[in-house]
Structures are given as structure tokens and as C-alpha cells.
């Protein structure tokens, strides 16, 4: 399967601060990829670079096989809905579709108007008067109707109420089926992503902490509880992600490919949210060590 996004040592610096450090990724096509991490971790920066809106400071990136958009042909293959779903406040819904039609050779006008109709949007309504959820749906329609191969979404549902959130994801998943779309969407809430993502990237403190298929991640991460113990004494091959101790008890989140034989541990599976939290709660020192990428 071809990779939809390949990054090697990607980095971006703003004046003094590195927003993105040493990111190496290999994201396969045909998946819905979740990009999760706390605010300021670098998710928006990564997406902007992939969309071609920002130039990297270090490293390389390839999207759909070429460096991010140099030509209008490449722009047609990548869709992007930025944070807060930017739309032109003074333009009506219909005018947004006209904008898309006049600027995109691959524009699917029938699909766009069908989608607008089924969403119940009034074509004559100005975008500035729409609710947050409706604006997000409009921006998504404009991005989808040019029939991209890859769709990038920056926190698309962060500011939406639960119903709008659900409707947005429903429409997005339908589009994935209809258009055989690859999607990368970012969020700082794992719950948003759990339902829809089959590939996960955890970005903390400008670095990729872990990346891989959700099934594989869930199979290789475990929660260990047992008598109080020093986590540094674990055998090779068992990487401690997070540890917490009481007087008598130690709880560890561990990543390992091999089965755990030590009978002192109670091994339980770990949910995706707790897995992400474990990576997000690592100390600053641990978080800045480059983490091995987990391949499928």
C-alpha cells in the first residue's frame, strides 16, 4: 500500500521555539488517522506543513508521493479544513460552492449540492450567520467536493456541541466510504477519535511519541499492577510508558511485543484513552527522548 504521508526528521521552528521536532512518520493510505496530543503539541503545525501552507525548517515530507503542494494538480489531491473551519463571512453557502466550482477542476457540483441539501443548509444564507456546526459542515463540503485523495482536518469538532459533532463524523465517514478517502484528523480529545480512527499518532511536546494501527497499539500496550517495584528493573523489550506508585503497589503502562511472564504482575488490557494519557503524562525529559515508531 502506498504511503499517504511520509515524513523524515521533520521539524519546524518559530523564532526560538521548535513547534515540531524530529518527526518521522509513514502513514498508509486508506485509513482514518487520528493525530492526538495536548494543545500546543504541534498538531496544527504538522497539518499545515502537510497541506503546504507552511514550509518545514528541517527534514523532509512527502504527501501522496510529492512534496507538499507545488502545483495546482497536487493541490487538487489534498483537502484541508483548518481549525475553526474558516469560511468567508460575507459569502453565502451557494457562493462558497461557486467558489469551489470555479477554483477546482475536479469539482463535483452534484455531490456538493446534494450534501448541502441533505444537511438542511439554506444556500442563500451567509456563512457568517451559520452556527458553528453548520460552518464546519460547509467547510467540509467544500473540501470534499473537489474529490481529494487525502483530507486533513484540524480539530474539526472541538468547538461543536455533541449533536453537531456526531453529525459531522457521520458525514465524514460516509464520505470516506463514497470517495475511498484517506483522512488525518487531529484532536486534543481521544474520545472524539476512538470511534473513527484506525491509525493513531500521539504528538506531545513537538515530538511523535507513538504511531501505529489502533489494533496493534491496543494489543501491544498493557496495564501492569503488582507489588511495589522499581520500573527500571523490568526485562528488555518491555518499555515503561508511565508509572505510578503507592506505598505497596506499582501500576505501570508498558509497551511490549512479547508476552509478560512475570507472575507477580496482573496484566490487563488498556483502553485507547488511557494509552494516550500515559504518553501525554510522561515527564518532559522522557517525552523529549525520541520514541521508536510502531509500525503496523
Amino acid at each position, binding site marked *: 500500500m502506498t504511503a499517504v504521508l511520509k515524513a523524515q526528521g521533520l521539524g519546524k521552528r518559530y523564532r526560538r521555539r521548535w513547534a515540531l521536532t524530529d518527526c518521522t512518520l509513514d502513514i498508509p493510505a486508506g485509513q*482514518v488517522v487520528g493525530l492526538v496530543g495536548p494543545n500546543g503539541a504541534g498538531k496544527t503545525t504538522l497539518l499545515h506543513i502537510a497541506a503546504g501552507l507552511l514550509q518545514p525548517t528541517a527534514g523532509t515530507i512527502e504527501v501522496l508521493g510529492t512534496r507538499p503542494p507545488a502545483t495546482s494538480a497536487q493541490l487538487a489531491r489534498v483537502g484541508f479544513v483548518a481549525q475553526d473551519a474558516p469560511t468567508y463571512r460575507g459569502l453565502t453557502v451557494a457562493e462558497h460552492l461557486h467558489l469551489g466550482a470555479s477554483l477546482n477542476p475536479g469539482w463535483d457540483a452534484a455531490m456538493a449540492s446534494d450534501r448541502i441539501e441533505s444537511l438542511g443548509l439554506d444556500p442563500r444564507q451567509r456563512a457568517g450567520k451559520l452556527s458553528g456546526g453548520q460552518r464546519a459542515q460547509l467547510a467540509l463540503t467544500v473540501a470534499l467536493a473537489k474529490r481529494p485523495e487525502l483530507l486533513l482536518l484540524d480539530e474539526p469538532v472541538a468547538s461543536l456541541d455533541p449533536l453537531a459533532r*456526531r453529525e459531522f*463524523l*457521520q*458525514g465524514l*465517514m460516509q464520505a*470516506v466510504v463514497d470517495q475511498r478517502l484517506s483522512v488525518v484528523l487531529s484532536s486534543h480529545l481521544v474520545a472524539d477519535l476512538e*470511534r*473513527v480512527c*484506525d491509525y493513531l499518532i500521539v504528538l506531545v511536546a513537538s515530538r511523535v511519541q507513538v504511531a501505529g494501527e489502533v489494533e496493534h497499539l491496543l494489543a501491544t500496550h498493557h496495564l501492569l499492577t503488582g507489588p511495589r517495584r522499581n520500573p527500571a528493573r523490568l526485562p528488555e523489550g518491555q518499555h515503561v510508558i508511565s508509572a505510578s506508585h503507592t506505598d505497596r503497589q506499582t501500576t505501570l503502562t508498558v509497551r511490549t511485543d512479547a508476552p509478560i511472564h512475570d507472575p507477580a504482575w496482573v496484566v490487563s488490557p488498556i483502553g485507547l484513552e488511557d494509552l494516550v494519557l500515559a504518553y501525554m503524562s510522561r515527564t518532559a525529559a522522557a517525552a523529549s527522548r525520541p520514541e521508536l515508531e510502531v509500525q503496523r
Partner: protein
Amino acid sequence: MRVSVIEFHLDAHSGVAPYLQLIHQVRQALRLGLLSEGDQLPTVRDVVGRLAINPNTVLKAYRELEYEGLVAARPGLGTFVTGTLGDGSPAAIAPLRRELQRWLGKARRAGLDEESIEALLLTTFRSTAEGEEEIA
């Protein structure tokens, strides 16, 4: 236009993987006679449009069911039920359900709450199954 016979639902907090929940619901529908041979399962598009889950999840569930011989995918048409489950024919199930509903009414009138009814059902079910095993 054919309307799908069953609708899926998802319990996000049950700890059971979504694709397993879908498989379970199809099997249950087959057992209860809600699905019979020739019926079409909801399209992947319809399922994700309702549940907002990853299409690969649905595909995986349908593939698993196909592997078990319960359904078959017909390219361009959809996924259709091809097999049956359970030994009870639909005709036998209806009177059993009615009897069960009557029993439930009796249990409630006797003053049992929902948890007690559930506990009674499960323990009796299990002990009866063990008893049958011993005999067999």
C-alpha cells in the same frame, strides 16, 4: 429500494471491540429470526452514517461473518444473509417468547426488581447448563 432489516447500535463503553459488537448483533438477529436467508445487511455506508464509526470496522465484521459462512458479499449489490444460526426455528421462538413474557410478569408481581430477575435468570441458566453437562 430495499430497506435494511436490522439497525446496529454501539455501546462505546462496554469494553467490547466495535466489530465484535456488530458481529454479535447479527448473530443475535439470526437466532431470533429477525434476519433470515436472503435478507440484506445494512450497507457499510448506512452503518457508518448512523454510528459514525470507521468503515474498516464494519468491513471487518462483515468479513468475519462471511468467514463463518453466515453472510455473503455480492459485489455491487450488498451483503446478504446466507446461513442460519441456532436450532430453534422462528416458529418455535414466538411461543417461547410469549411464555417468557408471562413469567416476567409473574416475577414482577411477586415483587422482584430488575437486578433480582436478572440474577435469577443467569444463575438458573448456568446451573441448568452445568446440570445438563453432567448428565451428558
